[in-house]
């Protein structure tokens, strides 16, 4: 399935080491009740860096990226986004959420609003953009994800792949500095995965800072500057796609890769 992507040359890296890191996770710990789901997670993402997070289900990868925009709260450790520390301070949180776009596994479009309204809602009310400008911006991004003709339809009238592309456009309309993808292709039929991945590759080529939880190894090879492997709430290994996929050091990663490869 991802073979087609593997033949494509790696997207040129746009990592900016001169700028301060976009995201810093410092010894982050989280528990769901008694369950220890994140254990001393350390992660630094530079501006313009594309990080792919993989790991078996229940490894804490989704929880980790959901902590970055505080859909989940962590209990110990420090998270800095764009230089701002996540805390109970509502204003800091608002500032962070404005700069961080998120794409969900189940799209989470607003079904009672048209595609265009989905895209303009946050720019109008959070960015205080005039309605006309917001609509122009939305059309621009809908064109970039190749569905401008669907702007006046409701999400329920679109295919899964189209809905996910709308969700990406919706997040981009806020002009975020960082994009989080939480298994964006896991809920899609196989024939729709490529159209969504293509959109994400395009975004990567433009130098967007991205953290992407995915099992699409082809995508990881093509765009990732770094692959992070998580298991049981810990970052077990991280490195370039070649290092991680071709030369796994730990047994856990070897096991995971063998399962993934058998699955495909």
């Amino acid at each position, binding site marked *: 399935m991802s073979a087609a992507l593997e033949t494509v040359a790696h997207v040129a890296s746009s990592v900016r080491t001169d700028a301060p890191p976009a995201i810093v996770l410092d010894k982050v710990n989280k528990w769901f009740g008694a369950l220890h789901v994140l254990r001393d997670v350390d992660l630094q993402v530079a501006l313009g860096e594309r990080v792919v997070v993989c790991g078996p289900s229940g490894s804490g990868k989704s929880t980790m990226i959901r902590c970055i925009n505080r859909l989940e709260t962590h209990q110990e450790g420090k998270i800095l986004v764009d230089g701002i520390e996540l805390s109970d301070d509502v204003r800091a949180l608002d500032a962070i959420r404005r700069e961080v776009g998120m794409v969900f596994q189940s799209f989470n479009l607003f079904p*009672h609003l048209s595609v265009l309204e989905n895209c303009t809602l946050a720019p109008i009310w959070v960015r205080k953009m005039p309605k006309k400008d917001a609509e122009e911006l939305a059309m621009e991004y809908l064109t970039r994800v190749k569905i401008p003709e669907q702007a006046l339809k409701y999400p*329920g*009238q679109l295919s899964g792949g189209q809905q996910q592309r709308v969700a990406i456009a919706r997040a981009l309309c806020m002009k975020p500095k960082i994009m989080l993808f939480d298994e964006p292709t896991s809920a899609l039929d196989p024939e729709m995965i490529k159209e969504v991945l293509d959109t994400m590759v395009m975004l990567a080529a433009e130098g967007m800072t991205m953290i992407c939880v995915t099992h699409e190894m082809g995508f990881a090879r093509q765009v990732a500057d770094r692959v992070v492997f998580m298991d049981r709430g810990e970052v077990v290994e991280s490195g370039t796609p070649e290092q991680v996929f071709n030369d796994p050091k730990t047994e856990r990663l070897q096991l995971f890769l063998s399962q993934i490869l058998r699955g495909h």
Partner: protein
Amino acid sequence: MSDITVNTPLTSGSEHRAAPISAIGPVAWLRENLFSGWLSTAVTLVLGYLIIRAVMGFVDWAFINAIWSVPLNANGVAQTQACRELHGSGACWAVVTEKHRFMLFGTYPYEQHWRPAVVCLLFIGLFIVSAMRRFWNWTLIPIWMVTLTAIGMLMWGGVFGLPFVQQERWGGLPITLILSTFGLAFAFPLSILVALGRRSNLPAIKVLCVVYVELIRGVPLISLLFMASVMFPLFLPEGMNIDKLLRAQIAIILFAGAYLAEVVRAGLQSLPKGQYEAADAMGLSYWQKTGFIILPQALRMVIPPLVNTFIGFFKDTSLVLIIGIFDLLTAGKTAIVEPAWQGFGVEVYIFVGLIYLVFCFAMSKYSQGLEADLNRHRRR
């Protein structure tokens, strides 16, 4: 079936043919639904006979044998002899002809009856305007303010040369409309706040809302009305008095609010968590999220139970009769206390029932249209 499909040559392309006449149309419908076997044919015939008998009996009673008016004697008292001689074989609509003004407007001064009549029309106009989606914006607020002010001025009078009418003399349909309109107009927003409060992260607000709902819901409306009319004044300082109608109104608002809050909460809970998360991730504030994403979807989903509760409360306003407020039903009951009209309750209750039915049926029909209209996005 499958054999036929397989044998059809695919290359020729099967033509679209109209369904045979036995499969569509009224004949097919009748056969399928009423005469599908000997048992269903027998049931159809027996029930058909009973229905026709009942309808014919009602038509005889209500129209053919009915008496529409009776003469008055020299003192202006109705001569209901003719009605009594029917011995129940025909309706005595004369009671409605004679007493409809009292039933509709209660003890309101007779020569001023045009005022409550205009009030009823204003209410109906207000309902119609509020029902039109074209007016679903800020203009609705001034429209309501102006209409309700006009209604207050008409009912009380004392301005523009209208004689003052004290609240104790109001009665009939205007009372029912006032209680239900104000009741639901205040209870609905209250219920939304309470439903949101029950899901709040702030423990104090949550506890307050839970206690309110459980306390009010656990008590019969009648006892709340009694408390409002009998107990509440005991707590007020000497000389201070709040209008009895207002007290009943507040009791109804609180009661309806608790019930509606649970309906709204059901809607809030039926929304997938992803909707909240997507709104949060976009940086929408709590009220933006609630106003643009959560409530529009949650309320659409609970239109049927919401209207169910609305209709229930429209009729429950008739319970105010136990604290001596003259709503439509009480006025109807009182109309037949007079010796001349005693024994004609059925006609009066049919008349009153029809008025309730018109309002409730309108609400029901409107909600069906609204539901279909607002849920267009769910159609593919």
